[in-house]
């Protein structure tokens, strides 16, 4: 079987993204004292790379929605559900991209505390008294992570028949995303954060985040290629 040039490179984006992910982790491990390369610091090379990657994923998802929608005009098949799911995936990636480049989650407590100071500081005091010592943004994002988990399961079930060979990208991507809050909770606990191995935990958490999003971006890319193939074959 001869492979056409475009299809031969179907997994090239994933390989390149994973390559850059690993290089950034390696650079962080060796040069974390420099803010430019530290994965735990915002507005530097890893943040810009990650933000650009997530926005690219969102763009690909929206492109896939457009292509599938265009197919509907030519074939009378049911395409509304895949479009909605991939559209939601794109919207989620777009929000994540905004969050990454805008450092929203790092500042969410500050933003909300300006609006509701008494409630927020009261909540913080009671949480501290109750023994919660990890980062405070996690509390505000737990509902989002849960929603992402439910969406990931739903999307995998609904899209498994459409993209059986590539659904693993989506499943593993969402599984890794679900690991992020757990690791974030652990590595921002005082005893871990105070240890000199904190940067290793950072590398683990940020590495999982980067690989998860690389898989989701690759899934969006595969959907675009497959659906574009269907479009031209009609």
């Amino acid at each position: 079987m001869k492979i056409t040039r475009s299809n031969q490179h179907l997994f090239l984006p994933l390989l390149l993204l994973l390559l850059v992910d690993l290089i950034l982790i390696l650079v962080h491990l060796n040069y974390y004292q420099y803010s430019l390369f530290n994965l735990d610091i915002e507005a530097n090379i890893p943040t810009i790379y990650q933000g650009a990657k997530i926005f690219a994923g969102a763009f690909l998802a929206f492109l896939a929605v457009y292509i599938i929608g265009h197919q509907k005009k030519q074939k009378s098949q049911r395409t509304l559900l895949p479009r909605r799911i991939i559209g939601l995936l794109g919207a989620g990636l777009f929000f994540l991209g905004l969050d990454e480049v805008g450092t929203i989650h790092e500042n969410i407590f500050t933003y909300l505390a300006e609006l509701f100071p008494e409630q927020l500081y009261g909540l913080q005091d009671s949480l501290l008294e109750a023994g919660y010592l990890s980062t405070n943004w996690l509390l505000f994002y737990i509902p989002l992570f849960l929603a992402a988990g439910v969406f990931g399961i739903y999307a995998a079930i609904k899209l498994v028949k459409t993209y059986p060979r590539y659904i693993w990208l989506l499943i593993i991507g969402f599984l890794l995303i679900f690991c992020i809050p757990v690791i974030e909770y652990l590595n921002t606990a005082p005893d871990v954060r105070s240890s000199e191995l904190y940067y290793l935990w950072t590398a683990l958490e940020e590495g999982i985040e980067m690989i998860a999003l690389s898989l989701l971006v690759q899934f969006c890319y595969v959907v675009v290629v497959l659906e574009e193939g269907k479009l031209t074959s009609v």
Partner: protein
Amino acid sequence: MTEQYTNTLLKSELRKHAHSFTKLLEDPLFVPPHQPSVAQQERQRKRRRSLDTFLASPEEANYIRDFPVVFSVIIYSIIATILSKGAESNNLSVSPTPPQIRFGSNRPKSDIVIGYFDKNVFQPVLFVKTDLTTHAVTPRPVLDPRYNVPCITITAKQLFFPKTDFFTEITVTMNSRLLDDRWRNMFDTVQRSLDEGFGSIPTSRHTTRNQR
């Protein structure tokens, strides 16, 4: 009887359509639908077929085989780095330097080093009060490259609330459940140094790098 009737009906329908189709072709304004060229059809057919067998094809296996060398080198480097850093950290002795505070005079627009810490001691949560608001500060431990020992830093952004251009008072309090003697000493030093250094703290917005 019914079958015969259906056949007759079908034939008459076909004849009618054939007639209208012939008329259509004769129409000078008729534009036939786009037919992909033979080369295009062949390309599309190959694409469909190759997509189905992409993962299982030997070409793909060859293609993937080119990457492990690069990946292996990077992953090996990561593991080696982690192992070597882990070994270094085991040998890293706790700094004998007593808690100390330096405001950003040595490192303008940079972090404020509030002291060195023992890795076995819990980290405090500091509350910085300004005239407008109170906000929690979780000092962030980093490895100070100049001294190669772990130290706690508070970023200027953390200490000076970004929206607080002017403030009259900074009070640092610490979560009581975390207090022990060693941290109490450090806390006293922090408080004293904040009091002493208050005059040198800029009363306008202090810009610094954004740090988690």
